[in-house]
């Protein structure tokens, strides 16, 4: 099983118990009074049968509080997700903390810092780096939005899942647009792995067809689900943070209810990508502190519900370069989420707000994850670590500790040694060519790419099955008219025939 980090102390809280309760009541009130738009006939019927107030005309669904609470109670507080290789199985929930990557549409040039689409090799390289990093416990969708060279839009993520399954044994996620999860779920299954179903909310208070369908697929294939909410406070959610928590929670509930109605005890985690709105340019304000305030409050409420939480908004920042700003904008939100009880942190590889990602960044982020992980593990207090006899033995100056057996044993237990950080003194640093963390990360990337092997690779028959499903998908979308003739011509060149 993929070993995460254990948080060994009570989580950070910023709300009182009464405030948590008020937010819960507010959420139930919105669900009952305002309701949610659900563009999915099947789901409307399920909700109706369960006692919701459903208007089939306007598609508005209003939820009785009892039903919501009952469904929340049915969610398991921790669960396992199976990977192709049992070493990558996930244990989600309780005080175990896992990490995964945040994708970018594009890669970025490390000299000009301008974005551009990755090549297929670069796409695979990023997957391989993520597969090799031990603290990346599973892989998000993408990690890039396809690659250059002419894959039709609708096939990008399906081809992407195939690349991930071929180059990594880690669990991944099946996004739900245009039915592509119908294919990707089967691909994962062919490789002997579970995959997260991925229904996403749309703010405010709207559930679109494909996203709701993902719940039906989760039930059908008995898969774990990760539900994302990505409201922007001030734009699609109230500008006050407490209101944004109420709204995003209300948006997540319909999916929770549906999942538990379809399959009681269904495995589910809720992901938080709520960002403040940048009031100058309308973009989500990535990397800003409102991200964390929302996240910490969200974590506190969902811990009461016993549903594992995912912090998504700690990955992307508003910096375009790998620089100081990126460093603090990643560290603070990730740390605060980890301290406040997130089960999963979406940290690795992203640079600017969902747009750019890079494997070098993933390697750098590995040190942040390691540091936070070390912090979560806290301190051991025992006779040996208290070391009172040793202190007495060493006494005042000129006594010292460096040569002691106790030091040889304990420093390694206590200290986390980062892999890509500059830890030299000035003279050493000048002598070795003034290398920065980016230089060390490049060296580590070379090493990973020249040595890392996926373990195990797909068997011949698994590979054939994946190829067969890809073919089926290509034909399906071709027939649906979602791959144009022009697209088809250039696509054929890539897939060889």
């Amino acid at each position: 099983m993929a070993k995460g980090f254990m948080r060994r102390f009570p989580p950070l809280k910023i709300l009182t118990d009464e405030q948590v309760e008020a937010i819960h009541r507010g959420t139930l009130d919105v669900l009952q009074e305002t309701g949610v738009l659900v563009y999915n006939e099947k789901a409307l019927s399920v909700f109706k049968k369960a006692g919701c107030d459903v208007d089939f005309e306007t598609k508005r669904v209003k939820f009785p509080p009892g039903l919501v609470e009952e469904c929340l109670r049915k969610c398991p507080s921790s669960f396992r997700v199976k990977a192709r290789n049992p070493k990558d199985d996930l244990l989600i929930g309780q005080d175990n903390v896992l990490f995964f990557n945040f994708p970018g549409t594009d890669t970025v040039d490390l000299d000009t810092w301008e974005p551009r689409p990755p090549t297929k090799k670069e796409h695979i390289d990023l997957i391989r780096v993520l597969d090799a990093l031990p603290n990346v416990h599973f892989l998000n969708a993408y990690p890039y939005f396809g690659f250059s060279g002419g894959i039709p839009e609708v096939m990008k993520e399906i081809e992407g899942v195939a690349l991930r399954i071929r180059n990594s044994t880690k669990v991944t996620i099946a996004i739900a647009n245009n039915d592509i999860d119908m294919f990707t779920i089967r691909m994962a299954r062919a490789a002997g792995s579970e995959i997260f179903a991925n229904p996403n909310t749309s703010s405010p208070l709207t559930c679109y067809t494909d996203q709701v369908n993902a719940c039906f697929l989760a039930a059908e294939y008995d898969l774990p689900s990760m539900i994302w909410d990505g409201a922007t406070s001030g734009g699609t959610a109230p500008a006050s943070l407490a209101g944004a928590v109420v709204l995003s929670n209300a948006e997540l509930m319909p999916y929770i209810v549906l999942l538990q109605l379809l399959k009681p005890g269904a495995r589910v985690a809720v992901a938080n990508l709520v960002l403040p709105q940048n009031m100058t340019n309308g973009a989500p304000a990535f990397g800003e502190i409102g991200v964390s305030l929302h996240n910490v409050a969200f974590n506190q409420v969902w811990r009461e519900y016993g549903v594992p939480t995912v912090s998504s908004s700690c990955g992307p920042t508003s910096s375009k370069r790998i620089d100081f700003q990126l460093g603090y904008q990643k560290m603070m939100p990730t740390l605060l989420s980890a301290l406040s009880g997130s089960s999963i942190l979406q940290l690795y590889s992203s640079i600017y707000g969902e747009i750019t990602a890079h494997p070098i960044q993933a390697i750098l982020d590995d040190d942040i994850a390691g540091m936070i992980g070390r912090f979560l593990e806290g301190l051991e207090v025992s006779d040996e670590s208290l070391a009172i006899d040793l202190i007495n033995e060493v006494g005042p100056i000129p006594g010292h500790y460096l040569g002691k057996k106790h030091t040889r044993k304990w420093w390694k237990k206590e200290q986390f040694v980062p892999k890509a950080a500059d830890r030299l003194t000035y003279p050493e640093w000048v002598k070795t060519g003034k290398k920065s963390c980016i230089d060390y990360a490049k060296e580590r990337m070379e090493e990973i790419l020249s040595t890392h092997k996926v373990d195990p690779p797909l068997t011949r028959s698994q590979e054939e099955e994946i190829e067969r499903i890809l073919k089926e998908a290509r034909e399906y979308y071709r027939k649906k008219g979602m791959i144009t003739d022009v697209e088809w011509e250039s696509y054929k060149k890539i897939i060889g025939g």
Partner: protein
Amino acid sequence: MNNEILEGLRKAIKEYDNEKAENLAKRAVEEKLDPLRVLDAMTVAIREVGDAFGRGDLWLPDLVGAADAMQAAMPIIEEEIKRTGAKRESLGTVVAGTVFGDIHSIGKTMVCTLLTAEGFKVHDLGVNIKAEEFLQAIRNYNADILAMSALMTMTAPEQKKVIEQLKKEGLRDKIKIMVGGGAITEEFAKEIGADGYDPTAPGAVKLARKLIGR
């Protein structure tokens, strides 16, 4: 008295007060104020807000709030313009929306707000807009400009669909088309035969002026 109403309208817009704007517009009609002068006063106010936003003194919620207040008064004044047969000096009529399959609204809303502030008459159709819906609106409003937004590479081709549909129905030459949104590039805009592209909302306004030659 008259000036008081105009001053009040200006203030209502700058204080984001929908109700007051609406009431004052009604009063302006009752008092038989020249609707073109009323419109002028409102345009000045919204432009001041737009300028302050451009300078960084005001923020998006202020800009959108002011546009909303203006929108609250607008139908009343327009009705009056129609009734009196006065000739309205609008920069032009814009139909705007985010294309089908795409629900990203923020950038599109910004563009619409700034166009309104500049003095365009804007019909914001919203998000997830099908080609037919665009076409219908263009006919209904006799639009000069079509502004389309798309944020996903998957939905960008929808813009092409709309343009082709316009061609099919013989409307293409009657209208200027501008496109934008995160998934659109200059190249793509050329490729699909749009008349203009810009990556920012203030740029979209300049572009709109350029397209209709004003």
